[in-house]
């Protein structure tokens, strides 16, 4: 029988106790074992960033970590951004500025933007482009993503979040 490892972690504020095979990737664990399919797989070799989540406060490509390593961790995924159906300012800014088209890279981009704005509340365009340099988008050409993150920084500053 396949060896399983017990892990205990919180995802979007909810605590889970699960058993996982060692090789199960964290992104597969979030999608299949926790059932949150907002985090997407784009390449499985750490290049596209579609699987980006926030792991203990830092952005992480969840295809470059095994679920077993997440024992005791606190994870935030795209499903955890909006609070009781009220969109997070970043989500609002992406909606208002057409910062997404097919939506497949969007969860990863949102999580990178979330951490970027926490670390640098007033980023320049260059800071923004560097901040999402780990996320590839094929639909938007990044123009409206950069605009959306800029607008989000103003919203957040205004709302004092």
């Amino acid at each position, binding site marked *: 029988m396949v060896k399983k490892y017990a892990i205990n972690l919180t995802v979007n504020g909810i605590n889970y106790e699960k058993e996982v095979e060692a090789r199960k*990737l964290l992104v597969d664990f979030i999608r299949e074992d926790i059932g949150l399919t907002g985090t997407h797989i784009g390449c499985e070799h750490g290049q596209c960033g579609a699987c980006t989540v926030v792991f203990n406060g830092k952005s992480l490509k969840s295809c470059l970590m095994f679920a077993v390593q997440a024992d005791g961790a606190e994870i935030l995924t795209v499903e955890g951004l909006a609070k009781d159906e009220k969109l997070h300012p970043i989500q609002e800014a992406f909606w208002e500025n057409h910062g997404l088209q097919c939506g497949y890279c969007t969860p990863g981009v949102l999580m990178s933007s979330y951490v970027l704005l926490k670390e640098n509340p007033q980023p320049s365009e260059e800071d923004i482009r560097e*901040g999402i340099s780990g996320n590839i988008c094929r639909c938007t050409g990044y123009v409206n993503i950069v605009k959306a993150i800029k607008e989000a920084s103003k919203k957040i500053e205004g709302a004092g979040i």
Partner: protein
Amino acid sequence: MKPFSFEYFKPNNIDEAISLLNGYGEDAVILAGGQSLIPLMNLRLARPKYIIDINKIAELSYIKDTNGGLSIGALTRHREIEKSDIIKSKYPILSKTVSLIGNPQIRNWGTIGGSISHADPAGELPTLLLALNGKVKVVGNQGEREIDGDDLFLGYLTTSMEKTEILREVYIPEISPKMGWEFVELTKRSHDFAIVSVAVLMSIDNAGKCNDVRISLGGVGSMPVRAKGAEEFLLDKAINDDSINEAANIASEEAEPESDIHASAKYRKEMVKVFVNRGLISALDRVRG
């Protein structure tokens, strides 16, 4: 693709890690940041039977500015190095070099020990380590030993560390504030593996002559290499456009790059000239600045 199966261990301290490493030897691999190892596992190029995850060993993550040099724990994340004020002020070349690695996600989790022991010739840190005359402290069941940067890299992804040793610390000798420095690299896209990378450190005596210079080249062979010929040429010389140009030409001769689909060997050799030139000029500005 999905990774092959393996057994997973998460030691609490270094001794536990070492005994695991010795117990499983050839088929065991250390997992730190995973940013280089896990892509190889997901592509099923690497199929280790045992993974030893050292992320719980907090004692391996530190930045200590002792007298005479900087000690960085092998498990220290690139991001912490990038944001460290002590490094920004006393080792600015390290601060800039680390900021060129991968992207925010990779820098959050990739470790200095991981990237140096992975020994990718196009990686930023192996190249920089040589220019800094840095060395690594490795620990095994025969205790701890030091390996100088020059003796560490043997070839592509290959170091002189034993299979049963763990890299514990990277040590960088103090850099005098009077020293000019620069780290420049040519990449097709921001943060790609370098086509060519150059690390330069240089100081000038008050007669305007060069009394210390170190140039190391990345991406131009199976391992990073010090351009010793160019260094010797510049020693005791006045640093001006001509001497810089000549040094760049010599350095280019010392590079033995391979061709691949991204750049030919001929192009890489020419780029060594361009970037050694740019590195020296910028280092010179900093000396005078």
